[in-house]
């Protein structure tokens, strides 16, 4: 007899309640705050599902960086006040949507309970392959991301580059090449500066640690990169650093480093290991860490640029 099932049910209820609050809140900003709290709660759910890697990612990206993005956006939209309260949809439409959503949720819930038993799984294959192509990676998720499904991972890095291009393209022609607007308009504020000065070195250390242990323990380039990104953002919020101009080659190189190195090593695999995106078994682990180091850099550069938004004409003033 343990307390754990009750805690699980409590957590589940809490997640659902906060989610309902996010959807039902009247005010835009309240709903954004609700979503950020929701993201953090979700990290606990992932821990309960024995998914520490996902929990780390959810806490850092889903809760943390997305939270900064949405809060900033909510604040700016709130300040502009031009979001006219539109005519709320009529009751009939609301009811219809509610019924549709309930049907989808109900069908999905029923189907989840019907998933086959015993469940199919690739865990045995992954365990068997971990001796060969997975090559000495203690963390099976890193092995999946960097070896078996490395192609997805490389494409996902391309998605980040395209998102950066897309976000930048939303700016004006005149501002092109300049820097995004600073994270906080007012002058630096002492507690924020203090926080950045204390937190950033520790955070960078932890970020690199998470990346390095990712080969064998929960963590990896994603989670480490997200932490580094957060530290850069804190530093920029304290105005200890300003967002870089988007036409600087150093920034561009940092953004493409991950996918570029991945692509080159993937091509080289054809010559060295007989197949595109294959690694020579003896060298697999160092090569994977090498690629991940560049991906760490790319993620740490891409996430803050995505939050910072398009280049701004006022940035230089």
């Amino acid at each position, binding site marked *: 007899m343990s307390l754990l099932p009750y805690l699980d049910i409590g957590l589940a209820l809490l997640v659902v309640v906060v989610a309902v609050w996010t959807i039902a809140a009247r005010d835009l900003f309240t709903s954004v705050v609700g979503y950020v709290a929701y993201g953090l709660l979700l990290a606990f759910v992932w821990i309960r599902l024995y998914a520490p890697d996902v929990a780390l990612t959810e806490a850092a990206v889903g809760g943390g960086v997305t939270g900064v993005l949405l809060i900033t956006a909510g604040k700016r939209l709130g300040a502009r006040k031009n979001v006219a309260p539109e005519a709320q949809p009529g009751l009939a439409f609301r009811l219809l949507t509610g019924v549709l959503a309930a049907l989808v949720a109900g069908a999905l819930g029923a189907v989840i309970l019907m998933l086959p038993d015993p469940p199919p799984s690739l865990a045995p294959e992954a365990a068997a392959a971990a001796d060969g192509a997975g090559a000495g990676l203690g963390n099976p998720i890193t092995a999946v991301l960097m070896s078996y499904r490395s192609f997805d991972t490389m494409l996902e890095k391309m998605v980040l580059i395209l998102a950066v291009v897309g976000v930048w393209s939303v700016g004006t022609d005149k501002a092109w090449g300049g820097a995004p607007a600073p994270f906080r308009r007012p002058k630096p*504020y002492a*507690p*924020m500066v*203090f*926080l950045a000065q*204390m*937190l950033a070195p*520790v955070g960078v250390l932890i970020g690199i640690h998470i990346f390095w242990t990712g080969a064998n323990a929960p963590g990896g380039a994603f989670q480490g990169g997200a932490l580094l990104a957060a530290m850069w953002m804190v530093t920029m919020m304290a105005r200890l650093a300003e967002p870089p101009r988007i036409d600087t080659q150093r920034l561009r190189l940092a953004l493409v480093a991950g996918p570029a190195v991945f692509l080159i090593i993937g091509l080289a695999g054809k010559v060295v290991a007989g197949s595109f995106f294959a690694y020579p078994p003896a060298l697999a682990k160092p090569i994977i860490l090498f690629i991940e180091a560049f991906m760490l850099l790319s993620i740490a550069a891409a996430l803050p640029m995505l939050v910072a938004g398009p280049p701004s004409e006022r940035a230089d003033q």
Partner: protein
Amino acid sequence: MITLLDLFSIAAISAGAFFFFAGTVGLLRFPDALTRMHALAKADNVGLGLVALGLIPRAESALSALKLIVIWALVLLSAASTTQLIGRALRRGRK
């Protein structure tokens, strides 16, 4: 078999939990945002410190014990900074 260290852990974690409880009561019962924040930050800093202290004897290695202390220090830092920031936002909002 309960050792002295276990007793210490139980005492410290219980005390920590009490502080969390008091902080939550404060959050719910205090009249305005500043006093609520006061209750939350103070109680959480001490509460988490006591919980971490209670867990240290149960840590597997010296490194994990160190991690517990670092976690507490980081929470102290962020709690102190965020209360400052929220407090300032409140003051500006009132003017």
